[in-house]
């Protein structure tokens, strides 16, 4: 669901080897060639750090004793780099002193393998690190998912929204944000009980997922409020999608309360190119539009286009 998660499923994981000795490259490539990952290799720390950004390895095998930038320095820089700090680093080193080992672990290494290494042992240690990494990824993803609906949760939304807004500041892409709030939802809980309310939330989440694109990010924003981040989407397109969601919900017949339909009010703010809006201001404006949709009678979508010109407000029922 998140972009990292998607990548993990789509491609073979890469193990990056940073070692100044070509023999080690050759030996590892031979010994690990039947493993379920690819090996990328670099002969210096500086080059290795560059590669980390390019290939986003699953695991890094790092030599310590290298000329110019040594492995400790590489490790330090990896851990200071928010994009790389989560990648498990296995140190492979000819330095056998406990002091070196302790320093490496202090700096964030997950394992320390001494040279000359036994290749079977190394293979097992790499596999074990791979397993551990899968579990950590799974946990990290779980912590970002709303338990009831399976959508991304608020914490994930906050981080993703801030990333998306800073991304379009750099690339001038299109971006839309929708906030959707179920109308009179509290009455469902009060009248038909919480199981009925939960069912509404789950069904609505499911309907949203069916209407949005793969690249859109649907989140449970809180209570009966939902958010959809739509990268590369101009506001008029976001509006079309949200209209579909609105109509679909309106037409849904609920087994527990067939005579009590549900509706949703939606606010959308988007740009089809340049904008100077901050993420916070953007969110406030979406909230205002949602409020407007509510006050104009609910069950409607209010949209604003903020593409580097004075906001134009359009609404529909």
């Amino acid at each position, binding site marked *: 669901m998140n972009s990292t998660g998607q990548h993990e499923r789509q491609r073979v994981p890469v193990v990056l080897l940073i070692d*100044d000795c070509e*023999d*080690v490259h*050759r*030996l590892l490539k*031979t*010994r690990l060639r039947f493993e379920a990952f690819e090996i990328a290799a670099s002969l210096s720390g500086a080059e290795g750090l560059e590669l980390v950004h390019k290939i986003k390895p699953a695991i890094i095998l790092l030599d310590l004793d290298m000329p110019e930038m040594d492995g400790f320095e590489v490790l330090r820089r990896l851990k200071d780099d928010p994009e790389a700090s989560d990648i498990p680093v296995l140190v492979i080193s*000819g330095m056998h002193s406990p002091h070196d080992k302790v320093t490496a672990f202090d700096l964030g290494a997950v394992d320390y393998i001494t*040279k*000359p290494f036994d290749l079977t042992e190394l293979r097992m240690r790499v596999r074990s690190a791979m397993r551990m990494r899968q579990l950590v990824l799974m946990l990290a993803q779980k912590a970002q998912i709303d338990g009831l609906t399976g959508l991304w949760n608020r914490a994930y939304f906050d981080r993703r929204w801030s990333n998306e807004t800073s991304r379009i500041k750099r690339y001038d892409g299109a971006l839309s944000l929708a906030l959707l709030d179920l109308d009179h939802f509290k009455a469902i809980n009060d009248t038909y009980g919480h199981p009925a309310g939960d069912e509404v939330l789950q069904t609505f989440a499911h309907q949203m997922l069916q209407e949005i694109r793969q690249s859109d990010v649907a989140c449970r924003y809180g209570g009966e409020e939902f958010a959809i981040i739509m990268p590369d989407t101009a506001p008029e397109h976001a509006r079309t999608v949200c209209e579909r969601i609105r109509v679909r919900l309106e037409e849904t017949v609920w087994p527990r309360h067939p005579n009590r339909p549900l509706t949703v009010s939606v606010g959308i703010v988007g740009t089809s190119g340049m904008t100077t809006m901050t993420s916070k201001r953007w969110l406030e404006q979406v909230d205002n539009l949602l409020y407007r949709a509510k006050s104009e009678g609910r069950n409607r979508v209010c949209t604003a286009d903020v593409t580097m010109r004075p906001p134009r407000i359009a609404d529909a029922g």
Partner: protein
Amino acid sequence: MQEQNKGPGGDAICSQYANDPDMVEIVELFVRELPKRLCSLREAFEQDNHDSLRTLSHQLKGSAPGYGFPSIGRLAGRLEATLREPDASQDAVRGQLEDLIALCERARVS
């Protein structure tokens, strides 16, 4: 573990991985490239370049066992350790280097 064959300059030492089909190719490559490494080692010694000598022996220490030549790794490691001593005598370095070179010259795939 190592087979012993008679060869020029003493008994040949063979790779532990001589019969490992995965490894044969890169072991051959290692053995073929050994003379080049020995040249570099000699050159570094003659130029009194201890840094380079240490790097070369360090690499050999780490890699030779991987190709199935642990004894070469041990001698390279001894030389590297000597080079790390601040008051390493030129004679000690020379002696250990000669031992290492003599051993490497006996290396064969099988």
